[in-house]
């Protein structure tokens, strides 16, 4: 059984790995609140290659989770995609019907949320819920489904037999999040969206979860969109990084390029205001003026908190190329 699954994974990996082309391509995506005609996400571009991880970083209200919701086709009816396209492999997600979308969701895109407590139904044993997931996507014998479940539970380093027969409340937070990941990858999706997967966990457990995701990504050759407000998590693991503020992408590029040469004032301030363990303790942390919700209505969304603001910032900045695969949207950057 294990051998067959391993083989299937390998074949699937070969299929996807044909071109350098991106697996997920978001172009010019705009999401609007219908009633007041306000854009919550404004003309964003993102792409992820198969087998890579993109870290989407932003504060509360920056629109990062909204972007993920749009990818899953789960926007509430009060919000609408008013511009741009989302392509995943051969699917144009923006033009799929709900029925077609249901085939994509779960099977091609998996979602791991920060709220692992509500991932499983509380009074049904975990194994049974896994089997249900498998059977709802393809007709499978129960005995076979069970074997598949055990295989994936082992993959995420859980004691398969015990977890299979446990209720959700009998597992710790880290174990539950692992089980949720196992459930997400069990249909071998091509894209995993991990929305703040570690916020509710302590540091060591969180690190382990991220390492696990990273390992699975390499092994299954799937793409991961890691959404987080914590720069630390992204810096060490993601291949690319995108910094979002007020519904716009301010800077995007290969992680090492952005780290070594942050071009947007917001990115630079974020780097400076994070805590770091060091031999020489700083007396005071560098802070960013204002609150996360302070978004300029017009032009650059960060203008009202930016120390380098000048007249031109009333206009939306053009996207400039910093280096090969590194872009910034800022008037002050050169």
């Amino acid at each position, binding site marked *: 059984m294990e051998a067959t699954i391993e083989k299937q994974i390998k074949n699937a990996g070969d299929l996807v790995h044909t071109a350098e082309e991106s697996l997920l391509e978001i172009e010019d995506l705009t999401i609007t609140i219908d009633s007041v005609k306000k854009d919550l996400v404004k003309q964003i571009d993102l792409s992820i290659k198969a087998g890579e991880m993109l870290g989407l970083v932003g*504060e*509360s209200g920056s629109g990062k989770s909204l972007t993920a919701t749009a990818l899953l086709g789960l926007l509430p009816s009060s919000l609408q995609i008013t511009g741009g396209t989302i392509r995943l492999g051969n699917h144009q997600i923006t033009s799929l019907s709900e029925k077609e979308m249901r085939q994509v969701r779960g099977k091609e895109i998996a979602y791991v949320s920060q709220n692992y407590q509500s991932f499983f139904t509380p009074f049904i044993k975990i194994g049974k819920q896994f089997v249900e997931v498998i059977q709802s996507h393809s007709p499978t014998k129960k005995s076979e489904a069970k074997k598949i479940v055990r295989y994936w539970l082992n993959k995420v380093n859980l004691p398969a037999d015990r977890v299979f027969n446990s209720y959700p409340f009998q597992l*710790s*937070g880290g174990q539950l999040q692992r089980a949720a990941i196992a459930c997400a990858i069990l249909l071998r999706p091509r894209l995993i969206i991990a929305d703040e997967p570690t*916020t509710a*966990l*302590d*540091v*060591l*457990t969180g*690190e382990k979860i991220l390492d696990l995701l990273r390992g699975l990504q390499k092994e299954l050759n799937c793409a991961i969109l890691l959404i987080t*407000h*914590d*720069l*630390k998590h992204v*810096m*060490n693991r993601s291949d690319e990084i995108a910094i979002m503020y007020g519904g716009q992408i301010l800077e995007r590029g290969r992680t*090492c390029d952005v*780290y070594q040469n942050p071009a947007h004032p917001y990115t630079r*301030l*974020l780097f400076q*205001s*994070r*805590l*770091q*363990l*060091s*031999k020489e*303790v*700083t007396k*005071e*942390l*560098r*802070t*960013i003026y204002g*609150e*996360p*919700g302070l978004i300029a209505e017009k032009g650059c969304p960060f203008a009202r908190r930016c120390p380098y603001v000048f007249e031109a910032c009333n206009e939306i900045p053009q996207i400039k190329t910093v280096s090969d695969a590194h872009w910034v949207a800022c008037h002050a950057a050169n």
Partner: protein
Amino acid sequence: MLEINSITKTYDTNPVLKDITLSLNQGESLGIIGESGSGKSTLARLILGLDSIDEGEIIFQGIRVQHKRNSLKKVRRHVQIVFQDPASSLNPKLPVWKSVVEPLENYPDTIPLFLKEVRNNKELMAGMLFNKVGLSQELLERYPHQLSGGQKQRVAIARGISLQPALLICDEPTSSLDVSVQAQVLNLLKELKRDLNMSYIFISHDLAAVQFMCDQIAVLKNGTLLDMFRTEELFSEIRHDYTKKLVGLALKDIL
């Protein structure tokens, strides 16, 4: 000021704290670091007298902390707490200024130095406290749901310092906040400690935060105090293996 003498606490048959001994001087700050389930929050609950102690004792300014109403009233005048989740620690049905002055209503005889001139006017007191934590006066009449996470946490801190306590316990005060706001809140706490000669116990799972915030660090694991030292000695060779592991992990974060 605070002395914790070999306390033990068991929930059902589960020991959560085993023989913990530590002490803290006025004006000093102590960081408690550990994973979830290490007993750090239980320790905070015991210092506040929210739970009874099984063995050992906690002495605060010469008073023994007991899980009894009379002794608690005396202790709580000087010990306050700021919780992790500001959303659930503020009454959603009160405008925030009322939450802020509530401790002052409970202790009508207490006159904090920085509120001396306005002690008889609740709204002015709330205004002064807002000033102290860098919140605008416009926010006084708002309800918690109308404030951002960082603003709510500052309201909680304003309430925490309203009695000018000798000790403020901060249980993961910034883990639900954004990076930029976290910096503001941590700077604020440090400033208040200096201005009010206040002590705080800073509970966190983030070693970098504890290093930045505290004079001393205590490392807890599975209810046992593994290591206790002055922050300057964090990188010393004689640290416990577990502490070294935490240091290693935290250093890995720097690319």
